[in-house]
């Protein structure tokens, strides 16, 4: 398309850039960011995104509480995080400026919609004077004040749309402008608009006009001296799509249940940031994916457990407060040894906490949040795309070992996105389901010698009638049994079964750095990106540092104890107060140190390098 070619201006080549779109909740920043991301993916850059939106549906227009942001980091090299500091901030109003300016690097580009800097808006966020007129701001950053609202109106002069509708399209102006600035193609966005507004030609027309107006504004005016180009990254050959963690979780669950050949049933109750998984899965009825929006989290997991009893794949999705409510049922699943996948998309806690922010603080709840000794496998995802494989693993373990399994994701990877190499469906591992059929020798708790799994005998199978119960039962027969020695034996069998899974998961090994060294940075979950980036920097500056990342949090990989001993020190960065660190210390008696910043957002790369450097001193 013509609009992607630029004939008049310089194109400067960059290695990478981090930009953030920020505006009012009503300004469409998530959509703008999403479209920019798609365009960037098509260019072949590596990328990582971080949406950040308020807990209120629509806080008062122009207020700080209502600011919504979308950050993207893209590069011609491999990257791991959405970026610590911004090269460009697009601020659609004073609130967006106030809330985000601190993250813009000195000398960075600040693009603002000057029309929004009127008295009312300034007052809403307690600006006593217009910050754009502040000389310090002008000297610290490259400020581009653009009348985005007015230019949008001008672009739509004569349109039949109401003033309100006209104003709503201004985000596309910003998008167009940024596409020009970073030489991104707009075809996909145009296609998407065509599709979305196919029944509303007026709106479609207006949107396209404004999008192009933004692009042409960059091209034509003298405001920007050059535009930027970021080369395709050298990423592994393959077919890619951009994917969020929740989308990857959805695909992982569908793929795993297909591979297992049983009917999946998701029992769920909406909760941020897990709800989108329910929304997405509800669209796959043609795949036999059954979704059940229950009256609460307890019912949701109950329905899922009933499904597993009947031979389906029971799944439940939630976030921390919902896990609280599910814990009694998780214990019933542990006791009755039925497969079940519990997806916890973690958010800031405790209590209602910060529903739209990220945190890694449900690990110990997943490990221990139930009465009695109640061991459960835990699998965690480290990046958006990794959710696919991690949740697939959770399903595999649940079925093979007849056990509930926790899958831990979090708000950051759930909503963040990255390019994802689409796996070949045929090469996905098979998940073998062995429904018991033979009557001969059947006992409901007679275990497989290797996995210690009990048989899965489902209602409808003649001759295998049996009753499951949460009361303690006899080791083999599964009949209620109150005998002391039997209980002790059962407690230990349950523990052993889960421990044994260590034989069925890969050893831990370094991601970056050598097998031995001065410092190991050990992580799990969504800190992956920041830790990798930090490790690369540390290695580059000559330190003997390595990093490793745990997918399996219970049981830990078999070689972990020995592995830890290869490093003089161990640093464990977590977005919590040191939860995995406690498990590691207790199990391996290693004096590992935590880096614990619980600020509802990904750890910054430089927080990690600083912590590492101070340990290396």
């Amino acid at each position, binding site marked *: 398309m013509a609009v992607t070619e630029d004939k008049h201006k310089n194109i400067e080549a960059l290695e990478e850039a981090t930009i953030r779109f920020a505006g009012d909740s009503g300004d469409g920043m998530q959509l703008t960011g999403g479209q920019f991301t*798609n365009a960037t*993916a*098509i260019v*072949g850059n590596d990328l990582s995104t971080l949406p950040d939106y308020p807990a209120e549906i629509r806080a008062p227009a122009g207020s700080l509480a209502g600011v919504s942001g979308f950050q993207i980091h893209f590069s011609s090299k491999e990257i791991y995080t959405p970026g610590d500091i911004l090269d460009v901030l697009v601020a659609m109003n004073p609130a967006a400026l106030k809330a985000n300016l601190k993250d813009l690097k000195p000398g960075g580009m600040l693009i603002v919609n000057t029309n929004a800097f009127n008295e009312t808006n300034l007052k809403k966020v307690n600006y006593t004077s217009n910050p754009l007129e502040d000389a310090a701001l002008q000297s610290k950053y490259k400020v581009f004040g653009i009348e985005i609202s007015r230019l949008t109106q001008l672009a739509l002069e004569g349109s039949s749309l109401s003033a309100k509708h006209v104003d709503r399209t201004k985000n596309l102006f910003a998008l167009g402008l940024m596409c020009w600035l970073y030489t991104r193609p707009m075809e*996909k966005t145009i296609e998407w608009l065509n599709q979305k507004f196919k029944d509303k030609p007026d709106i479609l027309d207006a949107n396209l006009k404004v999008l192009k107006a933004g692009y042409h504004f960059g091209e034509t005016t003298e405001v920007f001296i050059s535009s930027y180009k970021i080369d*395709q990254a050298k*990423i*592994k*050959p*393959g*077919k*890619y*799509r951009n994917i969020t963690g929740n989308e990857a979780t959805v*695909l992982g669950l*569908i793929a795993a249940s*297909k591979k297992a050949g049983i*009917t999946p*049933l998701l*029992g769920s109750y909406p909760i941020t940031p897990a709800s989108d998984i329910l929304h997405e899965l509800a669209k*796959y*009825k*043609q*795949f036999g994916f*059954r979704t*059940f929006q229950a*009256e609460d989290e*307890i*019912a949701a*997991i*109950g*329905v*899922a*457990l*009933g*499904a597993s*009893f*009947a031979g*389906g794949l029971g799944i439940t999705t939630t976030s921390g407060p919902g896990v609280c409510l599910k814990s*009694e*049922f998780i214990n*019933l699943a542990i006791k*009755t040894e039925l497969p079940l996948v519990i997806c916890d998309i973690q958010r800031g806690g405790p209590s209602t906490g910060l529903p739209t922010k990220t945190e890694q603080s449900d690990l110990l709840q997943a490990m221990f949040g139930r009465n009695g000794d109640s061991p459960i496998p835990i699998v965690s995802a480290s990046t958006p795309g990794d959710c696919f494989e991690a949740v697939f693993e959770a399903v595999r373990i649940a079925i093979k070992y007849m056990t509930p399994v926790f899958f831990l994701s979090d708000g950051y990877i759930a909503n963040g996105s990255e390019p994802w190499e*689409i796996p070949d*469906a045929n090469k*996905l591992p098979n998940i073998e389901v062995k429904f018991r059929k033979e009557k001969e020798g059947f006992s409901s708790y007679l275990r497989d010698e290797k996995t210690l799994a009990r048989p899965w005998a*489902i*209602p*409808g*199978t*003649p*001759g*295998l*009638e*049996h*009753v*499951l*119960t*949460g009361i303690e039962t006899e080791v083999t027969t599964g*009949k*209620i049994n109150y005998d002391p020695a039997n209980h002790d034996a059962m407690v230990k069998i349950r523990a052993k079964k889960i421990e044994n899974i260590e034989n069925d998961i890969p050893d831990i090994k370094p991601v970056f750095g050598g097998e031995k060294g001065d410092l190991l940075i050990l992580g799990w979950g969504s800190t992956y990106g920041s830790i990798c980036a930090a490790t690369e920097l540390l290695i580059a500056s000559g330190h003997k540092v390595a990093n490793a990342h745990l997918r399996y949090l219970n049981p830990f990989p078999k070689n972990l104890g020995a592995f830890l001993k290869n490093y003089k020190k161990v640093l464990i960065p977590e977005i919590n107060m040191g939860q995995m660190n406690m498990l590691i210390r207790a199990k391996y008696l290693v004096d590992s140190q935590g880096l614990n910043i619980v600020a509802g957002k990904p750890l910054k790369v430089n927080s990690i390098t600083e912590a590492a450097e101070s340990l290396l001193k």
Partner: protein
Amino acid sequence: MATLEQPKYTKADFESANDVRWCPGCGDYAILSAVQSVMPTLGIPKEKFVFVSGIGCSSRFPHYMNCYGFHTIHGRALTVASGVKSINPDLSVWVVTGDGDGLSIGGNHTMHAIRRNQDLKILLFNNKIYGLTKGQYSPTSELGKKTKSTPMGSIDNPINPVSLAIASGATFVARTIDKNVKHMMEIFKEAAAHKGTAFIEIYQNCLIFNDNAFVDYTEKEVKDDHSVYLTSGKPLVYGKESDKAIKLNGFSAQSTGAKNGDLKNALIHDPTVKDKALAYVLGQMGVENPELPVAFGVLRKVEEPTYQDRLLDQEKQALSKKPNASIEDILNAGDTWVVS
């Protein structure tokens, strides 16, 4: 589901080898026996029955049936049962719960399972007490009831299970009593034949912690004056001498004399009326309006698609729109690009 070649069962086929551990004399025994007697008559292969329960004396029930069973956690049986039925609608799923299990901790699931018209048979054993935990008052215990936890008498108004079920939109609502085995069996059979949620309140005597709670409906001298048995198409006549009837007064039910066939004012029972008001009024009788007799029998029975019907229907529709969906398609959906 029945086929001709199907084995003929006897009651014994539904009796488990486990020792029954209720107190000797507990009303639960009669209910168990009635259920075991009805099962062989339903023409359903034994392996297709599933009994799901919560926690309570009553909830031990599945252990005593020689069927698939799930003795779950307190108050949550209906959620598990809904999951079972939603994965395999071909099963005959029965839920056993108590007044504490199904109305106290589990009250919300009762309401929601019913409104969804889950295709489940719900047997609520109402003994107006918490049996298993040794005698605290329950949501059906009468005001002023002295129990372990209410030494000066309960200060909560009781709930009427049948009113709650009707307000939740139950498509089948009935009431029966442990001492009337024949009636129980009839009701269980009718419930089994109903498509959708069948909610059955069973008065059950707990002789240890709440003995004689239902003597009004079981003792020879008084029972006929305190109970009216409902039959579809028949007038609501009751009394030792069949000398009383229920008639309508405005929106209220009222008792009237009805000697020797003088029944012209008597209400004729019709459980199939869509409007829930009739069933609501009948359900209140004797419980919320103590001057009237308690109604036993089927209060409401209407046909509506079940949750499972609608679930499978949507699946069929979706499949007909996108018949050949494969994992590949899904994985490769959306904007993709190739790096080479």
